[in-house]
């Protein structure tokens, strides 16, 4: 069925399509539409809903539901996402799957609610204590918001690791026509590592400190190596012959698509790379580049967080430029002019 939905609503339908069984959350702008959706309609779809006493509580209920085999979801923003980090770190260390949506807020501290991509480092470098990563999927279209939850649950169950889906508040509140897929039913008994009770005299344990074991460190290391090898995702436009390549995700990617169209119409060879997985960073796509000398990273944070990854993963061999600010997107024409000035 086709519907007109904003990013948050589309995400809620996407999560339903992915078969979620359980939602625990705490309201925070700009993510609250999803909370309200499940509070109102969760029952109709058989999704158990809890208003947790905090984000800390919500993420721990998610962990409990996940180890019971549920496809469990929590949705948050900014400070709420920070509050969840301890348990996200636990889940990565404990090999527990889960999906968390972080609709990014602007700034540090309380910050504010305009568009922002300031959580890039927090999401891609771990975010909590210790040695771990979460897989991070960034939505740039409302269609992505519908489709990524299913991909996220599959990845999280395959690698037994939390997956973060993210976008900024422009994507959260932009409406587009999308196809809403049919809801699948999750089978809570499908995963071998789900805790069911000790039925076969072989107790299953979820832990990240081993008093007697083991090869735990290597198992953990292998997990991230496999993810980095197999799960790099991206979209690329006109990169093969481009002289200048833009790198952008979420709302910035939307703007950059128009930049590429206009530039090409004027005969300027501009390409675009949209990372879909922010972690693992899609470095493979850069290996296909031929003529390009210049890379422009367009992002919504003052510290040029993604640019550092772009430089590192392309081995510092291009000329790098940034178009970045905390919450105001440059227009298509601004970016086009920037390209012309730096030709």
């Amino acid at each position, binding site marked *: 069925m086709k519907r007109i939905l904003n990013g948050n609503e589309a995400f809620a339908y996407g999560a339903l399509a992915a078969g979620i*069984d*359980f939602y*625990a959350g705490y309201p925070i702008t700009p993510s609250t539409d999803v909370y309200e959706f499940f509070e109102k309609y969760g029952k109709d779809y058989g999704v*158990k809903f*809890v208003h*947790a*006493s*905090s984000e*800390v*509580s*919500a993420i*721990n*209920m*998610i*962990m*409990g*539901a*996940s*180890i*019971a*085999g*549920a496809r*469990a979801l929590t949705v948050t923003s900014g400070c709420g996402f920070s509050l969840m980090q*301890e*348990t996200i770190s*636990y889940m990565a260390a*404990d090999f527990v799957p889960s999906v968390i949506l972080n609709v990014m807020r602007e700034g540090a501290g309380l910050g504010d609610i305009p568009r922002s991509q300031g959580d890039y480092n927090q999401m891609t470098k771990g975010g909590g204590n210790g040695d771990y990563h979460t897989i991070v999927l960034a939505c740039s279209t409302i269609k992505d918001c519908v489709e990524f939850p299913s991909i996220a649950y599959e990845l999280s169950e395959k690698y037994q690791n939390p997956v973060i889906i993210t976008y900024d508040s422009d994507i959260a509140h932009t409406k587009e026509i999308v196809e809403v897929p049919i809801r699948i039913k999750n089978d*809570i008994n499908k995963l071998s590592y789900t*805790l*069911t*009770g*000790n*039925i076969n005299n072989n*107790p*299953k*344990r*979820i*832990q*990240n*400190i081993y*008093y*007697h074991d083991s090869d735990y460190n290597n198992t953990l290391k292998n997990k991230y190596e496999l993810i980095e090898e197999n799960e790099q995702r991206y979209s690329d436009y006109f990169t093969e012959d481009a002289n200048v390549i833009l790198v952008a995700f979420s709302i910035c990617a939307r703007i950059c698509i128009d930049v590429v169209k206009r530039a090409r119409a004027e005969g300027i060879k501009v390409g675009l790379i949209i990372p879909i997985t922010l972690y693992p960073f899609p470095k493979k796509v850069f290996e296909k580049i031929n003529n390009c000398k210049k890379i422009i990273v367009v992002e919504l944070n003052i510290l040029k967080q993604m640019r550092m990854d772009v430089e590192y993963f392309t081995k510092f061999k291009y000329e790098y430029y940034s178009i970045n600010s905390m919450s105001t997107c440059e227009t298509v024409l601004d970016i086009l002019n920037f390209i012309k000035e730096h030709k």
Partner: protein
Amino acid sequence: MYEMLCAGCGHRTAMMILDEIIKEKNIKEKIIMALDVACCSLLIDYVDYDAIMCAHGRVLDVTKGYKMMRDENIVISYMGDGAAYSIGIEEMIHSARRNDAVLAIVINNGLYSMTGGQVAPTYVGANVNAGVNVNVGVNVNVGADVNVGANVNAGADIIRPIVVTNVDTEGTKLSEPVSNDNNIGFKIENIIGNLPISYFARASITDKENIDTAKKYINTAFDKYIKSGGFNLVELLSPCPTNYKLKPVDMVNVINNGWSKVYKIGEIVNNV
């Protein structure tokens, strides 16, 4: 049996009670043990049940998430007093207010044990000899307020509360009962006693008689939880001889003659 624990540790007794009950009820296949960190977590390699080690203070949330998905399972929330009443007090209140299906065992030894014996909200102290109790009371108050420090002993106790002197191994005498003083020891019934919970009982796990009583209460909590869910909590006054620097037998005396006068023992809430 549970050899990673210290000699005389209350966790061992508590686990043996649980093991017995689970065996008697023949419900091993349904059990999920959710353990808090530190000394609780030492149990993970020994329990014969599916088990999870939770983040500190988060046991009740994890078990609630689990129980909502698999109502047929029996999920034991096993935690220390620091987890239950300090860092995890918010979710304790949340669960009690909602009367969520909870089967919780709280090991109350008044301390953060694995980190070396820092005072928990439940701290009462180990020195229960006549007259010294007053100091113990002051220590607890001062524990939250370093500036009060007029009492040099108390000041020292804040940093290192486990200075035990003069324990009477013959069975300590308690000349001034302190059980009416609500400032001593954190009593969870003052917080959740009026919320719509199913069951709250407190026992000590020191000697045969007390252990039998503890088992009776835990059994009741199991029965109520299995029959109709609801919030069921049993708190166990529990020895930690290592941090109180006492022989196990002296620790037993401290609990029987000291803590058990401060904390009410018995079935404190028992709603249908």
